[in-house]
């Protein structure tokens, strides 16, 4: 028997025991830390559900806020305002974002493509409050008043990097052979992009939109300097008065976006620092609504994309 085998067999049992002990320790340690990492997540969600759930009822969703110190009322103005600014943001951000991403995916190594990638990286790191300040200077100041329009523009700037990045990545993931198959049939480049590239990448692109939207929905800082907040923002009321004074659809639409609007994060921020206990309780309820909002966007997008992928794969 060689020297090595002899030495090895001498302490084989000890070493096996040591190895098992080390395994048990590390497994416990990593498991514990994983649980530790999950605690804040469930704590936040659980706490918000418990505190906010108490104050949520149907009235909360369908009524305007009551005056200070008066109990009851809802946050319809904030829900409507959030919808207005996020929809505006999507309208402003998605078309240019997708087109820019298409260019970057198609011509990644041109000066313009490189510049786009670099600037989206920089833009995604800019603090949201700075973007708010920018929208304030560029839109609010010249227009001389706060507006949902300015809020939507600020959120759009925040959404752009996510949209450009995900769209570009998704377009790059489409196999080049699909493009060749289409061009090989004599399809021009634009037709190939529209009817093969974008549909093939659409699931991922739309996920990008929704992630960006969910992110923008929760933004507060940029809205402080643009949308401002407006507890009396009431779309139904604007439409009714618009119809009474014979305005056309465009005029009514302009009126909706051309005035300060409320939003859920803004309402949360304001309610939480008021001296009335009912208001603070309502702040929790707003937090819950906000979380649900984001959750619904996330879950529906995921479910929708899953079914789409399943349908495509057959």
């Amino acid at each position: 028997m060689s020297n090595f085998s002899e030495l090895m067999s001498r302490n084989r049992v000890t070493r096996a025991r040591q190895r098992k002990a080390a395994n048990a320790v590390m497994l416990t340690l990593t498991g514990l830390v994983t649980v530790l990492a999950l605690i804040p997540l469930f704590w936040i969600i659980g706490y918000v559900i418990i505190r906010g759930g108490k104050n949520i009822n149907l009235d909360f969703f369908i009524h305007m806020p009551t005056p200070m110190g008066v109990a009851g009322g809802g946050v319809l103005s904030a829900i409507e305002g959030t919808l207005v600014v996020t929809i505006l943001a999507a309208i402003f951000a998605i078309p240019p974002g997708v087109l820019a991403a298409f260019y970057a995916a198609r011509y990644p190594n041109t000066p313009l493509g490189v510049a786009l990638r670099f600037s989206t990286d920089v833009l995604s790191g800019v603090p949201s409050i700075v973007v708010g300040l920018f929208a304030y200077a560029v839109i609010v100041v010249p227009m001389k008043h706060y507006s949902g329009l300015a809020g939507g523009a600020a959120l759009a700037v925040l959404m752009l990097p996510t949209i450009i990045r995900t769209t570009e990545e998704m377009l790059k993931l489409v196999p080049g052979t699909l493009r060749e198959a289409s061009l090989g049939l004599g399809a021009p480049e634009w037709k190939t992009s529209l009817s093969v590239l974008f549909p093939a990448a659409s699931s991922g692109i739309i996920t990008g939109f929704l992630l960006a939207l969910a992110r923008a929905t929760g933004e507060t800082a940029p809205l402080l300097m643009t949308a401002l907040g407006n507890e009396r923002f009431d779309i139904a009321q604007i439409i009714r008065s618009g119809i009474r004074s014979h305005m056309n659809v465009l005029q009514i639409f302009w009126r909706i976006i051309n005035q300060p609007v409320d939003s859920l994060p803004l309402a949360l921020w304001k309610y939480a620092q008021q001296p009335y206990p009912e208001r603070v309780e309502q702040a929790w309820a707003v937090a819950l609504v906000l979380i649900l909002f984001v959750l619904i966007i996330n879950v529906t997008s995921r479910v929708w994309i899953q079914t789409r992928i399943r349908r495509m794969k057959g």
Partner: protein
Amino acid sequence: MDMKMEISESVFKPAVEGDSPAKVEVRDLSVYYGKFRALADINLLVHEKRITAIIGPSGCGKSTLLRSFNRMNDLTPGCRMEGEIRLDGENVLSSGMDVVNVRRRVGMVFQRPNPFPKSIFDNVAYGPRLYGIHNKLDLEGIVEHSLKSSALWNEVKDKLNQSGLSISGGQQQRLCIARALAVEPEVILMDEPASALDPISTLKIEELMQELKKNYTIVIVTHNMQQAARVSDYTAMMMIDDARAGRMIEYDATNIIFTRPKDKRTEDYVTGRFG
């Protein structure tokens, strides 16, 4: 062994006098990627309604040559082509030639099945729709005819609305052939069409090719020598020279290439001694 001396002469004239007329004539074709010359002085005459196989070791430019026929090389940045490729006498490489029309007349089937992530019907109807056919009845007729021509109709006729990705790999490749047939091409280029398929699917594709050559001119690139011997009427043998440019070293009727080739290198290659 000076390669430059040996090219051209034997390959420039029809492989067999009196066989069907020339469909595609390649004359002194050179293809460059930037400064690198990938193909040098290729001459080849493709007979109408015959299957012409292009064989040769990896990296000798078989695919580059095939992709010159329908100007797919245009898509590679920095690619430049010199010489002529005459399709029914018209030079497809001339700047006045409409690339869209070339690609309609010269269809292509790729190495891996690449159906669009659309329904089986929409995959086949994609080409006709490009050329302005939108009437549902017309499209249905074309789709059925194309799928029958690619021997896929019986397998998919009840699930035309299912995704083109839901069928097997061999079926997907026949779907891609149907998609190419739908725009009624004259020439079909096949770039190793069975290399990603199992033996039974390969056999089906090969049988299909025999059927298709009644109406179409087929050029196939293949790594599989048995396949070239089984399916083709003519075989072109390519190899790279000392400057790493692909050259055609021999072109003849397939039975001659595989039984009594003139070039020693062809003999070595087809008997499996190298490559």
